[in-house]
């Protein structure tokens, strides 16, 4: 049996092996070709047949249509002959001809044959256009043919010498179909009468139904090769056809059927026919066959294209698939080489699916092998780690002692030997507590052990405690003890880790002593966490705490809590001052990076602030004194200023007094004068008010003002002095408001100082070249600037450096404090005064002040 099957088996294996070596791409091309070929073959079988059927049907349809058409034409043609026969029979020339003639019945001469048109017919042109008669006969009443007009020049058939009475119509013209001498004829007869109306016989038209006649009957037939013919129905053969070459007379129907499709119709109109004749229509098969073949060729080409496309797409898809598989395989191969460290012995070439299958098999094998190896390795490692553990235990820096449930020592590492001064073998089996732990800490250790009885998570539990341990020589030292439960398969043991913490204790003491450091600080130091709770406050912060009305551990007031949060979140320091009772504290809040709190450092700055405020008072005093001295210098001018309105008032009043007694003038005039007096009194009052404002001692008050209006005010103030100097002060002031936040009186004092200095400087130059311009505007975006520009002698370089020194003056009168005080005032306003000699002549003094920013105001 086995031998019987071995051959096919071998063959199968060989095929499979061969098959496996074929790459999928090639395989796909082969399969694609096979499938495409098959599809093409099937289609080739099925489609032409269907096509032929369709064409056959088409042919049939066409035949029927053609048959009807040809028959109608044929009959129309016959109709034309019938009409012509009637015309000829009834024509005058026939009756005229017959008048003198009389045919004796017994006279049996051969009929008279005419080859030229006989006299009994009208002119040929009258009737020859439509018909094609073979012969025209004159027949007497007995049926004997008397005269013949032989048009086709053929012999008269015997049957027409004496015409059978059946073919002669009695009353009306009649057509008959018959065969004469074996050829089909159309016979049409009409009664012929002479001039007197005597029946002489008949006029007959005999037309051979030959090919000419048939062709003529189908004159307008298309050249599609359709033929007509006359068939003898009994004998199933053609008597005549329109194309005698293709279908000669006598052709059998079957023969004609080879090249043509034939249909036969009976002549139902010609009852008189003695023969069973039928009208045949022939449609040539060749015309349709050519078309069919053309279509078939096109069709076949299309099939070929379809099959090719199919093969191409199929092959491409398989090719892509196999490429993809190839890539996957390559990657897998790479992976197996890297991950498993094994070279996957895969087939590099061949059918990818088989390759994949092989690979998976190998992979599974590899995985199994690898797992086995890992297990073995793990076991080795376990063994090694146990050895290492032992070594670690021995080499541990801290004493490690293992005890059993009852507290007896079962393991004692070498460090423990060194630390406690015992030999391992001596202590095994001894009670741990009494040997190592000092007597007073025994209960604590017992409690620690007991926790393992109650705790549910005892295996993860690690119990720690600090206690005093005893060495072999009874010396004591602080230790931290950690106990861990070890669950062995048969019993539970405890590992006790002991750490000498003497050095840590020392460090802790150090920290504690350091922590006392802030306590000793004379300045307040506090620590506040983010929510604002005071974590720590040193004793010196007591005044602050009472100011905040809180204690350590409580929250700060809301305002300060917010500050703390701000500082903490921003990460920047924040400084502030608070007045606590009579003391002033400067507070610095500093965030402590990384920790959740801020430090507040306080500093008593009462003395500093007091000194500052005293200095400020002195400064104010000095400014005031300076102002008074300025006023003193300006007294003359002011007196004159006041003189003007006063004199005017006196004049008006005197004028009124003088007018009143006269009584002639109207009251209107007096009212005008009194009004003037009023306004001049106001003017005087305004001057005095201005004076008082400048001289009067006022508290420094800052208010927002337009520096332009200050300049105008000061200019009006020095107007008299300017006039005395023959100078008109030109004001080139900025069109926009220049807002500054200043002490108006002090800034006016500065401006007054600068302008008066300029006026004095101008006295030193000729009147013509005196000019004083006061200009204002922004300097940059943040500052406001007022320039006082004169054309005086300018500032000498040696003077320039001493310009702002106290008691420095180039004037004969004056203390030399004007510019110093002006500069002081300017700096007090965060501004400054600058002095520049102008190229050419003169000098420029500028007051620069920070522009008032209402947004900034809001922020503060």
């Amino acid at each position, binding site marked *: 049996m086995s031998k019987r099957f071995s051959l096919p088996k071998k063959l199968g294996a060989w095929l499979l092996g061969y098959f496996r070596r074929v790459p999928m791409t090639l395989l796909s091309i082969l399969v694609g070709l096979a499938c495409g070929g098959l599809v093409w073959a099937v289609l080739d079988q099925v489609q032409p047949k269907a096509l032929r059927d369709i064409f056959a049907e088409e042919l049939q349809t066409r035949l029927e249509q053609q048959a009807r058409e040809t028959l109608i034409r044929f009959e129309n043609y016959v109709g034309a002959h019938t009409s012509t026969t009637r015309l000829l029979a009834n024509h005058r020339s026939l009756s005229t001809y017959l008048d003198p003639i009389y045919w004796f019945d017994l006279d049996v001469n051969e009929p008279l044959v005419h080859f030229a048109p006989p006299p009994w017919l009208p002119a040929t042109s009258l009737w020859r256009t439509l018909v094609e008669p073979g012969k025209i006969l004159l027949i007497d009443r007995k049926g004997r043919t008397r005269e013949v007009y032989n048009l086709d020049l053929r012999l008269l058939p015997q049957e027409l010498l004496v015409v059978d009475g059946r073919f002669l119509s009695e009353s009306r013209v009649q057509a008959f179909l018959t065969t004469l001498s074996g050829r089909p004829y159309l016979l049409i007869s009409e009664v012929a009468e002479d001039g007197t109306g005597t029946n002489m016989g008949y006029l007959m038209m005999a037309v051979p139904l030959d090919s000419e006649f048939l062709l003529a009957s189908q004159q307008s037939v298309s050249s599609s090769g359709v033929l007509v013919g006359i068939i003898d129905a009994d004998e199933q053969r053609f008597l005549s056809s329109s194309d005698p070459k293709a279908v000669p007379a006598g052709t059998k129907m079957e023969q004609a059927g080879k090249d043509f499709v034939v249909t036969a119709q009976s002549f139902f109109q010609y009852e008189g026919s003695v023969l069973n004749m039928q009208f045949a229509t022939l449609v040539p098969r060749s015309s349709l066959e050519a078309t069919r073949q053309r279509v078939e060729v096109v069709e076949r080409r299309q099939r070929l294209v379809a099959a090719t496309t199919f093969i191409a797409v199929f092959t491409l898809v398989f090719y892509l698939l196999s490429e993809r598989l190839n890539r996957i395989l390559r990657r897998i191969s790479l992976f197996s080489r890297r991950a498993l460290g094994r070279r996957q012995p895969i087939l590099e070439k061949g059918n990818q699916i088989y390759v994949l299958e092989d690979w998976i098999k190998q992979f599974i094998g590899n995985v199994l092998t690898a797992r086995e190896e890992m297990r073995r390795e793990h076991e080795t490692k376990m063994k090694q780690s146990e050895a290492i553990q032992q070594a670690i235990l021995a080499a541990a820096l801290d004493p490690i002692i293992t005890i059993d449930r009852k507290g007896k020592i079962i393991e004692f590492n070498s460090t423990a030997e060194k630390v406690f001064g015992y030999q391992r073998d001596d202590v095994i089996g001894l009670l741990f507590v009494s040997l190592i732990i000092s007597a007073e800490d025994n209960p604590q250790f017992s409690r620690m052990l007991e926790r393992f009885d109650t705790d549910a998570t005892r295996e993860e539990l690690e119990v720690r405690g600090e206690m005093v341990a005893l060495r072999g020589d009874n010396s004591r030292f602080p230790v931290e003890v950690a106990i861990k439960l070890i669950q062995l398969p048969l019993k539970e043991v405890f590992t006790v880790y002991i750490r000498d913490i003497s050095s840590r204790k020392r460090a802790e003491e150090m920290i504690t002593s350091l922590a006392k450091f802030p306590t000793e600080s004379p300045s307040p130091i506090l620590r506040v966490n983010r929510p604002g709770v005071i974590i720590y406050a040193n004793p010196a912060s007591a005044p602050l705490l009472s100011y905040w009305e809180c204690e350590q551990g409580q929250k700060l007031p809301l305002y300060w809590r917010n500050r703390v949060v701000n500082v903490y979140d921003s990460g920047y320091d924040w400084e502030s001052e608070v007045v606590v009772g009579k003391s002033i504290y400067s507070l610095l809040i500093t965030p402590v990076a990384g920790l959740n709190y801020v430090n507040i450092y306080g500093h008593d700055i009462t003395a500093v602030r007091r000194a500052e405020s005293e200095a400020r008072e002195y400064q104010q005093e000095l400014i005031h004194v300076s102002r008074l001295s300025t006023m003193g210098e300006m007294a003359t001018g002011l007196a004159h200023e006041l003189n*003007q309105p006063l*004199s005017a008032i006196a*004049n008006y009043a*005197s*004028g009124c007094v003088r007018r009143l007694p006269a009584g002639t003038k109207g009251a209107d005039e007096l009212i005008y004068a009194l009004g003037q007096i009023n306004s*001049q009194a106001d003017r005087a009052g305004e001057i005095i008010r201005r004076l008082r404002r400048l001289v009067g001692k006022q508290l420094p008050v800052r208010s927002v003002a337009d520096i332009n209006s200050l300049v105008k005010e000061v200019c009006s103030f020095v107007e008299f002095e300017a006039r005395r100097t*023959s100078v008109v002060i030109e004001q080139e002031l900025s069109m926009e408001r220049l807002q500054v936040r200043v002490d108006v009186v002090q800034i006016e004092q500065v401006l007054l100082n600068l302008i008066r200095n300029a006026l004095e400087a101008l006295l030193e130059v000729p009147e013509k070249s005196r000019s004083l311009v006061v200009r204002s505007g922004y300097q940059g975006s943040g500052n406001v600037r007022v320039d006082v520009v004169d054309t005086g002698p300018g500032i000498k370089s040696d003077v320039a450096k001493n310009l702002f020194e106290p008691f420095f003056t180039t004037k004969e009168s004056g203390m030399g404090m004007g510019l110093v005080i002006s500069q002081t005032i300017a700096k007090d306003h965060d501004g400054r005064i600058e002095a520049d000699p102008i190229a050419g002549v003169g000098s420029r003094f500028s007051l620069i002040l920070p522009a008032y920013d209402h947004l900034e105001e809001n922020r503060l």
Partner: protein
Amino acid sequence: MSNQPNVFVVDDDQAMRNSLKWLIESVGMKVETYSTADEFIRNYYPGRAGCLLLDVRMPGMSGLELQEHFLKHQINIPIIIITGHGDVPMAVRAMKSGAVDFIEKPFNDEMLLESIRNALNKDIEQRATQAERAEIATRLANLTPREHEVMEMVTAGKSNKDIAQSLGVSAKTVEAHRSRVMEKMQADSLADLVKMAVTANIESNSDDS
């Protein structure tokens, strides 16, 4: 002299100007006011009767400068200087330059008006003197050179004899000249003639200066 005398007020302070106008008009005088010296010069022509009330300190041309201008152009309008602060050097300078008065603010109205009246009187006087001087000049022009010589000598106080001797003519001729001079000069007496000569001399002196 047909025109009524004007009081011209030049002051840069409008209130002062208006109030002075009001005061001076109350006694029936005509007042014209100007805010600067220049404006006044533009509107004034010599021969306008009146006096000038001048603020000494003004922007532009000052009061003292205006006085100098008048001196230079032989304008003799009487000037009263008004000042807000009587500094002596300035008053002296003003008076030297020919101001008729110097008034300090604030002033008494009576004093001011009195001063104005005086100034106007002086103006009238000056005008009269000027007219007289013009008349004398005309008469002098009618004298022959010899007569002129004789008149000069007579008014110098020389006797007829001395004159005759120095001219080399007889005393009788001198006497004839003398009577012709008296007649031509329309002098009633020798004293009259001397007065005329003095007046004319002033004029000639001023011409020389």
